[in-house]
């Protein structure tokens, strides 16, 4: 005969407390692992600098991509940062598979730990591992004559508002001449045009892209992340909407990843 030892159901606050406590515990372990391997931080720091050094220098000289008054490196850096974040995310996704094969993930999932806490702890490590990249990218950009948010006074002057507005509408690929002219036949720009661009924080002039790429760009959180970073690094400083979009994508990602964690260990 079994003896019931059921406890009264926990309050609604208990899952939130569990999530916070477990995320902290798992994050500590992730940081301890990171601390034990300094090479990881170093290699992550070097990688974006190589991108900026090779592609940044070459493309800024051949001027294949028009960036208006903005230095090409300033234009490129947010994309490099977003790309680095994506690479780190992919690497940590693979690492979860290794941990599953090693049995570590299984063992953690048999503890009273919400699945989302495991994902959030991985995110915190990812953030820490990625911060040297951001630092090195911004330093390199600054040393190369572009502006850095933390050293605005030391680097080149900020681009004009007109240049900033241009940046928001510049194509990633192709020539700007191919972009449809938004001005009406009389040559006057509609009064609402610039304001609308800034208000909506429209990412890129995707109308020049093929249709399928336009669709991908619209639903791809990285598009919004790049533009939020661009807003933070080179202005105009109105990144709230974009950051909110990136945050929503992160929450959806955590929920989605947490919901498949169970399947992963089966």
């Amino acid at each position: 005969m079994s003896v019931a030892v059921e406890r009264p159901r926990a309050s609604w606050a208990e899952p939130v407390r569990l999530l916070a406590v477990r995320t902290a515990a798992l994050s500590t372990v992730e940081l301890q692992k990171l601390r034990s391997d300094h090479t990881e931080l170093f290699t992550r720091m070097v990688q974006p600098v190589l991108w900026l050094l090779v592609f940044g220098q070459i493309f800024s000289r051949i001027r294949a991509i028009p960036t208006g008054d903005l230095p090409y490196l300033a234009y490129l850096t947010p994309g490099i940062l977003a790309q680095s974040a994506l690479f780190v995310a992919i690497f940590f996704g693979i690492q979860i598979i290794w941990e599953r094969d090693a049995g570590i993930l299984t063992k953690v999932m048999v503890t009273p730990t919400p699945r989302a806490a495991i994902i959030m702890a991985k995110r915190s490590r990812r953030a820490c591992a990625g911060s040297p990249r951001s630092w090195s990218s911004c330093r390199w950009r600054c040393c190369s004559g572009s502006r850095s948010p933390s050293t605005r006074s030391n680097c080149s002057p900020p681009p004009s508002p007109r240049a900033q507005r241009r940046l928001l509408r510049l194509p990633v690929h192709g020539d700007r001449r191919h972009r449809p002219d938004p001005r009406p036949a009389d040559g006057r720009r509609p009064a609402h045009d610039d304001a609308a661009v800034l208000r909506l924080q429209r990412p890129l002039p995707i109308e020049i892209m093929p249709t399928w790429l336009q669709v991908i760009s619209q639903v791809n959180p990285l598009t919004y992340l790049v533009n939020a970073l661009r807003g933070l690094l080179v202005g105009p400083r109105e990144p709230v909407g974009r950051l909110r979009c990136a945050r929503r994508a992160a929450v959806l990602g955590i929920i989605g990843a947490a919901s498949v964690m169970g399947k992963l260990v089966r």
Partner: protein
Amino acid sequence: MTTLAVECTGLVHRFGETVAVDHLDLQIAAGEVFGLLGPNGAGKTTTIRVLNTLLPAQQGSVRIFGLDIRRRALDVRRHLGYVPQQLSIEAALTGRQNVTWFARLFDVPRAERAARVDDALDAMDLLSVADRRAGSYSGGMIRRLELAQALVNRPDLLVLDEPTVGLDPIARAGVWERVRQMQADHGMTVLLTTHYMEEADELCDTVALMHHGRLQAVGSPTELRAGIGPEATLEDVFRRYAGAGLEDHSAEGVRNVRRSRTTARKLG
């Protein structure tokens, strides 16, 4: 009145068309060492995974210390300690960090955490090497470290999935000596799977032989041996109940063999 640590009724778990666990009825009394034996693909690991909430109970009911695993999975996990078949420690962390990690995951109060971690390490004879990186431990030490992780929350039910696979006889004896000691000290229930019959014979109060997802025989090792003949060993019992139809081509079987070999290779 006997308190039941595990109570399974009509448990079924399928992987597609394959029935891994077929209407399993299982009862494990609190405080006993229960051995789940069977050939590869018998359904032992699937059963253990359902009991520790990694797999859902597709049919039937499972209660751990009276808690329904479907409705109270998180509470069930508070009662569990688990050592999987693979070597599952973080090699980059020290032994102490590995155990502290699990102490935090099991809500061991901060005030007594350090003492409990030291106790667990001491019980496994690892206190002197606690601040060394776990990657430098020998196979036997790693297994003992895993036991320390599983025991730091003083679980009511310790689940061991082939804990001595790949260990040399001395390391194996060391692991079992410590499990026995912890079981005697804290009166926990131990559920283990093993392929070593002499181990089950010596350590288990009750043994269940599983084959094709069903229990073929349950009893104390002495009872099961007596049922075969006066000179019978537990291996003879195993052959009698599981000897027929040992062919197993399921993916689960291949995966288990691969996992065992990987573990054995890592242990050297």
